């Protein structure tokens, strides 16, 4: 009985550690307080600032646009890459899989810096063209799409594709009508993963972005160094909005089959 209580208490304490800061900040974001301490009056002014300051809106839309664009390109590349690698000869397949693994295990600082060195320093491509930034984020995301699609292809009965050929479909039709529909779940989770990775990234953006452009991460890190109180508390509001969005997305995607989703999440974790 004591053991059981201990187990429960431990889980609760770790959850408190993980959520208390975010929740406290959420509460204070609805007040006029500029510091955690005495609560001073309910107010929505942080949210007004967040959604009316051009700088903040630009930063948020910029981050989202970048994430969607990078994830879309990464999804196409990673998916066809996984299909190609799976059906290639052993050596070609191993070559792709090994290179694919590098950005996955590499430190983001190194990935970002190396792309900056190649594109900006060696090839002299201007950061203002957004090409280094986009390329950097695609490089960060595509390998994860590859990894999330690959198991789907491996699990597929290989004769399904052959059956399509047998019934008169050309290889291209067999690919688009039979193979790809089978791996859609992997593609979708790969895309979602790519979006999350891009949204959370700091280092790659830092080393490849144009000076005038900011993602949420680079902006927040900069803002904490400055002492602009209105911006600081507006970011509390942003944090709260993102937290609520995440909760909402989790609820929507999992409400139908929470159990199943979890099992798959676990499976993918390996």
């Amino acid at each position, binding site marked *: 009985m004591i053991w059981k209580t201990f187990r429960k208490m431990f889980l609760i304490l770790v959850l408190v550690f993980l959520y208390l800061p975010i929740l406290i900040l959420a509460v204070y974001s609805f007040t006029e307080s500029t510091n955690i301490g005495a609560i001073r009056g309910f107010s929505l002014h942080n949210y007004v600032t967040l959604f009316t300051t051009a700088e903040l809106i630009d930063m948020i839309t910029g981050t989202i646009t970048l994430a969607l664009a990078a994830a879309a390109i990464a999804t196409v590349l990673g998916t066809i890459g996984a299909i190609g690698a799976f059906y290639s000869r052993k050596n070609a397949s191993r070559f792709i899989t090994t290179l694919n693994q590098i950005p996955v295990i590499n430190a983001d600082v190194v990935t970002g810096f190396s792309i900056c060195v190649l594109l900006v320093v060696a090839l002299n491509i201007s950061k203002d063209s957004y090409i280094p930034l986009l390329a950097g984020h695609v490089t960060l995301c595509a390998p994860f799409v590859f990894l999330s699609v690959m198991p789907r292809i491996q699990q597929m009965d290989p*004769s399904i594709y*052959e059956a399509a050929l*047998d*019934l*008169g479909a050309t290889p291209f*039709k067999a690919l688009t009508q039979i193979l790809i529909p089978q791996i859609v779940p992997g593609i979708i989770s790969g895309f979602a993963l790519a979006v999350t990775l891009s949204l959370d990234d700091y280092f790659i953006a830092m080393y490849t972005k144009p000076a005038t452009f900011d993602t949420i991460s680079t902006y927040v890190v900069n803002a904490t160094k400055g002492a602009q109180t209105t911006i600081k508390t507006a970011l509390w509001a942003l944090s709260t909005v993102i937290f609520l969005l995440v909760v909402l997305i989790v609820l929507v995607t999992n409400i139908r089959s929470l159990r199943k989703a979890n099992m798959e999440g676990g499976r993918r974790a390996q």
Partner: protein
Amino acid sequence: MESKDTIIELKGISKVFEDDGFKAVDNFNLEVKRGEFVTFLGPSGCGKTTTLRMIAGFDVPTEGDILLNGKSIIGLPPYERPINTVFQRYALFPHMNVYDNIAFGLRQKKTPKDMIDRKVGRVLELVDLEGFERRAIRTLSGGQQQRIAIARALVNEPEILLLDEPLGALDLKMRKEMQLELKDMHNKLGITFIYVTHDQEEALTMSDKIVVMSEGRTQQIGTPEDIYNEPANAFVADFIGESNIFNGMMTGHLKARFCGGEFVCVDDFEEGTHITAVVRPEDVEITAPGHGTINGIVDSVIFKGIHYEITVLSGKNEIVIQTVHNARVGDRVGLRVDPENIHIMLAEDHTNLFYADVNHDFRLEYNGHHLDTSLTRIIKGSKRREDGTVVDGNGDILEPDRVRILVSLMPDDIEMTDDQDAGLIQGTISNLIYKGDHYSYIIHTELEQDFVVNDEDLWNMGDRVSLLMPVDKMKFTLKKK
């Protein structure tokens, strides 16, 4: 010259896989007549599925040609061949319903919608699944999925229907039912069927023509009756039905010595020829002791429903008998076989065949000696599971008591020695022939078996020798008891 009703002809087909250099099919030749039901029969790994895949177009032969109606189709991709396949695990498209699965092939050919509707309806009727159009694949039972897979192939009105072990995933009762139904469909539609199976009973029941394959090579092509009654070699005899197989020697005109006795037979070979004798268990008669050709002691009796399966030990030879008469373990009996029921064949390449037993460590034993190999190493795809049992490539459990291993070994690979304890078995030289650059010896062993050994040196008749048989030169075939 091709006769007019030959639909497909395979000419000297060989297939070597690039990645591992494995020769799956070796010089395969076959002519199939329009409307025939042909079965490729053989153990797993014999090349039957590879051959089928080459006909379908999934694999390209390394050598040889495939002619469909007299024209080569080697260069045609699978989607341009008028041939359809029923896959082993059905390969139904899981994201489509029954209708879309069946309509898939017709849609590729841009068939008008109302025509598709009609054809799908008709073929569903044929497989007895009317009204299943809107059902999702995962809601169907194994048997129903099987029928849909057949319907999906047949709706395209292929010239040839290929079936790759289509009943393998079904339970026994369902399998029997589907066998009859498939045969029925074949008769009704008149389409040529090429069927792949490792189940000899299935092959015998359904086929017009059976192609028995082993290690990529054709062993025998013939009607089910031919193959059962007149097996071309020991492999076929052993694979089709149950058989007692003995190595022996011709001892005179229509006389052969094997299994420790001299039998009268109807096949004539020159005296001194090394032969393989095959006797079906149902052809052995039990007589009173001394009244048969050989005598033995009943070792085991198993009641099998319609008959008893009786194992008799004669010397160290084991003879399996199927009879409606009972016997008691320990009885002394005589055994005889009608001359026409003894199938004598030239020992092919003079290959020596003998049975090894499997002990409880899954190691092989012969004549009280361990062979330096284990079950998992010699049976393709088999593995030892965590619980200690061994399963074959199909996942069936192999029990040491229920299996034995047919070992084959070439005469060149056996060595004779004077050191009686050195070899696996001892015997006396009972015959020798000079073959130009070497002598061919027949060694009559203590187990009443004859072995053929080639040696460059001259030994004397009656010499007692021990036989060194290297395990790495042996070939193994699993036999279930």
